[in-house]
């Protein structure tokens, strides 16, 4: 070649090749750390980093071990962690560095980290993009929390942690087969129909106690140009399916929901589910079609503006809407109406459950610290701070002593008292079987906005449940309580 502008000497050539090798060097290292590099060598073993245990340090946390906490920054924000829980941990272990991350896309952010073995020590697994709990348990990625619940409580070392929290909390975090507690559900959440007590007072309304009353009420509300009931189909159709499931449990008892969780044959074809779906589809007819295209905050704002009477949600609603709630708007919660006189549970029954999960990854660098962080969270001081920051109750018994509760929380406490032992159970399939849950969202919108009948709803859901059951790639789980 004579067209090369300058002659390149052999030495220059070698220099250039050497430069290439230098660039290639780190790249090869990159390749070996990719998703399919295989082997479990990436997962550090938890045991060796433990220190000696003591009464105040029951898990043997190394005092200078750093702790990484990931909090779902949603309705509760993450100030309760940064301003209370983390400082409380730091008080116990002043030498420990705490790395905090408040995010919304839990799954997208943490999935690659689980794959590579570099995981945080505490994860608040929540929100619409939460990690698939069943898959994590199946892969041995989560720590069994039994030692936490058996450990002495911070407030009263003579008591075990499990005896200082609302009964049912430990079981609500069960997973795997055999079932063990892998998740600490921290927030005491009650579900029902939320309304503005002042608006009802002004119009002389009371929340409907039966579906017959619900229809009469709906007509009355329509007469006042108020939408009687609405939910956001675009991103919160699960608020509506909760109502259907609660009604199904009220009709047929908690077994109906246990059967659904256990993928029992024909669980969705049960009469109770059909009746509940029929009843709610009737109420759906009072909703404008446009609600299917709105998101939850848009619908909640409409309720704050006095355009919607009843809105299905949980006890986080009041705090979530705090900024948009006008003066004179007083949140209150009522149980879902009874479907028939032969319902197994009374009208007063509510779904109340420990919710908002916290997990400790099994292969983190400081799993003992993770357990200790959860133990700190379950102290009265931490629980009280949480309620103050988020206007939500925790599972810690007696943590609100001496506090003035907001109107919404006061009504939750009243509903809790009225319900007594009549508690509708939570649904675990929501986290166990995400495909089934996705299908339920679709079918709920189709039912509530009048595209399918209750019979089709049950048949479609049964088909999806059967598909999940037959899918060998999905880890099956079961529950008995």
């Amino acid at each position: 070649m004579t067209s090369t502008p300058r002659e390149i000497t052999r030495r220059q050539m070698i220099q250039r090749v050497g430069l290439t090798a230098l660039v290639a060097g780190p790249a090869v290292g990159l390749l070996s750390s990719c998703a399919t590099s295989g082997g479990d060598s990436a997962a550090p073993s938890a045991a060796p980093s433990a220190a000696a245990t003591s009464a105040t340090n029951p898990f043997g946390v190394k005092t200078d071990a750093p702790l990484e906490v990931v909090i779902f920054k949603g309705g509760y924000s993450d100030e309760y962690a940064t301003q209370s829980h983390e400082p409380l941990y730091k008080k116990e272990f002043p030498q420990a560095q705490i790395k905090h991350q408040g995010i919304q896309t839990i799954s997208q952010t943490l999935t690659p980290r689980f794959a590579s073995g570099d995981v945080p020590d505490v994860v608040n697994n929540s929100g619409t993009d939460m990690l698939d709990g069943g898959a994590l348990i199946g892969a041995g990625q989560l720590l069994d929390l039994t030692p936490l619940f058996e450990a002495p409580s911070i407030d009263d070392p003579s008591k075990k942690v499990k005896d200082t929290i609302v009964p049912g909390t430990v079981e609500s975090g069960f997973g795997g087969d055999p079932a063990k507690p892998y998740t600490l559900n921290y927030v005491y959440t009650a579900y029902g129909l939320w309304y503005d007590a002042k608006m009802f007072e002004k119009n002389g309304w009371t929340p409907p106690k039966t579906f017959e009353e619900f229809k009469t009420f709906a007509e009355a509300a329509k007469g006042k140009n108020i939408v009687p009931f609405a939910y956001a189909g675009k991103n919160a159709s699960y608020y509506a399916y909760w109502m259907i499931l609660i009604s199904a449990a009220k009709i047929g008892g908690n077994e109906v929901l246990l059967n659904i969780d256990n993928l029992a044959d024909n669980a969705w074809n049960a009469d109770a589910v059909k009746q509940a779906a029929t009843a709610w589809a009737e109420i759906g007819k009072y909703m404008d079609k446009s609600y299917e295209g709105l998101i939850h905050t848009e619908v909640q704002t409409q309720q704050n503006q006095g355009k919607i009477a009843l809105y299905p949600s949980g006890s986080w609603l009041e705090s979530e809407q705090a900024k948009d709630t006008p003066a004179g708007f007083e949140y209150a919660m009522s149980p879902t109406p009874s479907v028939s006189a032969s319902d197994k549970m009374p009208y007063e029954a509510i779904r109340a459950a420990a919710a908002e999960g916290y997990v400790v990854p099994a292969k983190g660098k400081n799993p003992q610290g993770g357990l200790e962080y959860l133990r700190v969270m379950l102290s009265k001081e931490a629980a009280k701070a949480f309620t103050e920051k988020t206007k939500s109750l925790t599972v810690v018994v007696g943590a609100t002593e001496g506090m003035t509760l907001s109107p919404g929380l006061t009504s939750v406490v009243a509903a809790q008292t009225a319900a007594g032992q009549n508690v509708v159970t939570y649904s675990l399939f929501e986290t166990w079987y995400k495909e089934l849950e996705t299908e339920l969202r679709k079918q709920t919108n189709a039912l509530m906005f009048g595209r399918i009948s209750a019979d089709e709803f049950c048949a479609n859901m049964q088909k999806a449940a059967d598909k999940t059951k037959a899918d060998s790639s999905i880890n099956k789980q079961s529950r008995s309580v």
Partner: protein
Amino acid sequence: MRHGKLTPAALRKYGFVVSFLAVPVLLYVVFVVWQYIQAFQISFTNSRGISPNFDYVGFDNFTRLFDDEVFWAAVRHHVVLLLAMPLITIAIALFFSFLLNLGGGQRNGRMVGVPGSAFYKIVFFFPQVLAVAIVGVLFQAILRPDKAGVFNSALGAVGIGPVGWLITPSLALWTIIGVMVWQAVGFYVVLFSAGMASIPKDVFEAAALDGAGRITLFFRITIPLLWDTLQVGWVYLGIAAFDGFALVQVLSVDRGGPDNATTVLPLEIWRNAFTYSKYGVASAMGVALFFMTLTFAVLTLRVTRRERIEF
């Protein structure tokens, strides 16, 4: 220079070329090609993406796709997108760029665009500057299904009831196609304008002297001489029709709804990977998508191949 012999001259030539190409090719291999290879590998495993351990399961993930109605719904939507979106976009873009460059007729013996075309060119390009997520959020407000939506409040002013742009299953996909077209048109107006600018003006002038009207000019002169650019545009838009993730994710009811009416493969890949933790299935979908895109690109280039007109 003969092939196969490593003469010092050849060494010098290739050494020079290699030294320039090594870094970009290496980056491309590490950050693009390698991921493709990994996706092929993962598609044959039961990987859940949350643990480095997995087993090979053969073609299980692919056979699973055959029974998956959501997968087929997504594939059907890509067919609709592929037929409609490029055609509509190119038609509108061609029409606009013709008006902007040649639509004004002759002035001082030269072909010019309609008055104000320099201004329009910039305006048409605006949507291209916006990130697709911003376009999504903008249209969320524009397409709101109640009377508060921009379109619906305008329609309400002339007495037409609110239209459920994104909540009516038969309308939702077309609404999203409309947004995709809106976003793409500007770029292709500019692309085709550049193509038209490179066509020698005397060709048009000669045709115009012979009495050709604007329509004849457009179909007999502009399109044949613009064929290469059109072909490129078609391939680009076709590949874009295999995406649609961001807009569907932001705009549609419950991500792909109502009733799967708007779902697309990238969204289902995302859902299988991040919601269901089925990385194997997600990768199998990705592999299917890879072959669909490749087939489309090859077919388009083959079918539309014409003799190039030199000018």
